């Protein structure tokens, strides 16, 4: 059986797990919760198998060693690995904190990401490695970067939840911050979805899609009316999130997770992610660049954005030491840090040019 069969199986498992986790939240039946965990684990095992199979296929086609045939060389493979890291991080949290509430959020993200990869027609072909990627550093550099990204994703969601729980008044800075951030996040995703549905036929590759058609269906539409309407609808949506944000707070409060636990989870995932990112992302990246290009640091956009991300999280770790910065302010930094991560991962490859443009094929 091929890897794509197991990827499909994992996608279906995550969708089932999502349904189970949500019904667990609604009915609080232990058996449902157990089933949700079991299905998630089954999906995870299947995805692990799929990754290993793809690794083996890659090794076969490229005709090289295991270390170099790591399936992390394009957007498709990296997204799959990202989902894998996210699920394992979630499972660890579930077992450590004995709390299944996050599952209702994580499994839909995983299922959506895998389904998105599937329907978007992202290139799934295994391509042999171009000479620049043939290095033993590939495995350590890319894998550690993605583990760190997944940990930062966890800190983003717990940080956001912390802000939601800890803000009361609509006029408070932290309340406005989280509602606007969440609003923009959803609006951006929705606008990209509309772009995709509108221009699906016209585009040949993912890269072309983002480069040529980003927001063309909405904000950057040829018709001024449509673009103005899009802006108005987005503003209205963000307003609604702001107006009815209290509902989110009620939902999250019902999870039985204390604000302190959320703060601790945010800190822990950054405290583990930061050193991994420093070593795997920056240091191994620099060593590899030194071997491949003869320069350990070139201020190439990918490098610079990694450094910006690094500064964000260094900022987070240091601001916890400052008086008056505990709690909501540092949580906001954690949330913004992940915006930098997303840009480092996707934005740089898709919007800016540079030496690091392998991921967009």
């Amino acid at each position: 059986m091929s890897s794509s069969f197991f990827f499909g199986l994992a996608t279906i498992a995550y969708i089932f797990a999502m349904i189970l986790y949500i019904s667990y939240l609604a009915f609080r039946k232990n058996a449902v919760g157990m089933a949700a965990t079991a299905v998630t684990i089954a999906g995870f095992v299947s995805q692990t198998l799929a990754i290993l199979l793809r690794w083996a296929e890659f090794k076969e086609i490229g005709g090289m060693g295991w270390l170099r045939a790591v399936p992390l060389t394009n957007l498709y493979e990296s997204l799959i690995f990202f989902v894998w890291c996210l699920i394992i991080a979630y499972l660890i949290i579930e077992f450590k904190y004995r709390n299944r509430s996050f599952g209702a959020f994580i499994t839909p993200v995983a299922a959506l990401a895998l389904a998105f990869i599937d329907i978007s027609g992202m290139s799934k072909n295994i391509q042999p490695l171009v000479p620049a990627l043939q290095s033993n550093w590939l495995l350590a550099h890319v894998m550690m970067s993605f583990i760190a990204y997944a940990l930062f994703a966890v800190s983003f969601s717990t940080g956001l939840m912390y802000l939601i729980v800890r803000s009361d008044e609509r006029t408070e800075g932290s309340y406005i911050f989280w509602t606007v951030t969440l609003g923009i996040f959803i609006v951006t995703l929705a606008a990209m979805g509309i772009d995709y549905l509108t221009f699906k036929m016209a585009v040949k590759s993912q890269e072309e899609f983002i480069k040529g058609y980003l927001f063309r269906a909405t904000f950057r539409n040829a018709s001024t009316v449509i673009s103005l309407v899009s802006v108005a609808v987005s503003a209205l949506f963000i307003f609604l999130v702001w107006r009815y944000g209290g509902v989110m707070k009620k939902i999250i409060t019902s999870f039985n997770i204390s604000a302190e636990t959320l703060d601790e989870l945010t800190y822990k995932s950054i405290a583990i992610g930061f050193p991994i990112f420093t070593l795997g992302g920056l240091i191994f990246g620099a060593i590899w660049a030194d071997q491949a290009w003869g320069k350990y640091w070139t201020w190439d956009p990918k490098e610079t954005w990694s450094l910006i991300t690094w500064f964000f999280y260094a900022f987070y770790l240091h601001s916890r030491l400052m008086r008056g910065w505990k709690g909501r302010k540092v949580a906001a930094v954690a949330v913004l840090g992940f915006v930098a991560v997303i840009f480092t991962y996707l934005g740089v490859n898709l919007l800016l040019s540079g030496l690091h443009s392998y991921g967009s094929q």
Partner: protein
Amino acid sequence: MTEEKKKTIFDRIWDVFASVKLAIVIFSLIAATSVVGTIIEQQADPEKNIKVLVKMFGIGHGAAHSILGVLDSLGFTDMYHAWWFLAFLLTFAANLIICSLDRLPRVWKLVQEKIRPIPASYVEKMSIKHSITLQGKEPRLKDTAAAALKSAGFKPAEATEGQSVQLYAEKGNFTRLGVYITHLSILVILAGAIIGIFFGYNAFLNLPEGETSSVSYKDRGTEVPLGFDIRCDNFEVEYYPNTEMPKAYKSWLTVLKNGQEVMKKAIVVNDPLTYQGITFYQSSFGMVPNSAGRGVLILKTHSKDGRSEQLNLKVGDTFIVSGTALTGTIRDFSPALSFDQAGRAFTYAEEMSNPAIFIDFDENGARKFSGWILKRFPNTGALPDGNKVEFLDYWGVQYTGMQVRKDPGVFLVYLGCIIMSIGLYMTFFMSHRRVWLTMTEEKGNMNVLIGASANRNRVSFERKIEKLASAMSAGHKGGK
């Protein structure tokens, strides 16, 4: 208040540089300006950046031109070398040094300070505490406790006060220095970078096959002497079988010192050659201008009965397939051969992407067969009569493009990276842990009070202490 007044200007400046606040301001400044630097392409053609600005903000060409003018005068078009960006980095370094020096004496004292026994009332106030009561007298309890502490990695000391005995121990006090080691590592990396800027260089060298050079070239064509000679023996692009995907760009290099060969290595991307501190990286390749017809065609013949011979030829030459009566005449050469739908051959590129030669084969004056032999497809050289002719290379018309670098600071950068890894590990995955275990005899029972503290990862230490407590209870029962 009075102490505030005594501060001199020097103290005030010191305080500013020692503050975490300045660190955060500098983080933000470097991050924010770097964002601009990634959007505006650095050291690029102005037209390119104008296009970027027009596309990104939807403004007119004229407006983009004037915006770029402003950005250019502020140094944003080459911002990583601009004085103000370097000033940020220097402030960052100064902040790191001074804030570390400011805090180090206190932390050093903490690290040096040995753990001391403390009264039970202090233990009560500790963040981690545990108390158990064991029935009956237990003379060996102290040994059980000491053994439990040892198995948790502590080396306990002992103090007696009245009716109670206290075992106390600590470990990892040096990990408090992790932060400063991390800070130090950044300074080491910056020092390595500065050494690289002042004592190193980046240059390039385009070296045709068969030629030797004793210099490399900097950006504006300035020659930089190497101190030795380097020769390119051959350059090849290898492809994955049956695809157009390049597998490797490979240059065979020889280093010569005073005419003597001292080193030979085939370099590929990710595997450079280093000699006397100068490193050569595979970076590009191309055709030597006006070289057509100057190269050598290298062929290898294999006769049916196993004889083979390597030949260096030119277009128009005739050769004998050794061991047979067959002769071949090279009629044509194409650097990039392809066939159209009608099966006619044509050349599709100037580069050597699919080199091929056309050969007429004759035997005793009569034409036997003729056709194209392609370098990348050795099967095309298998002749109908069982003999074989391989087209190995068209040598001497390509050059290899190499990055040439000398950077004596790299050693420090790598050292800094190692120090940083150690520092970060100490900071985030280790902690200073202390434990006090007091045993008091009371009304014939033993009261055991455990107090502990950790400066980080308290929760996991708490679990360890719980385990220790239960191990003691179990050990006690087992002893009965």
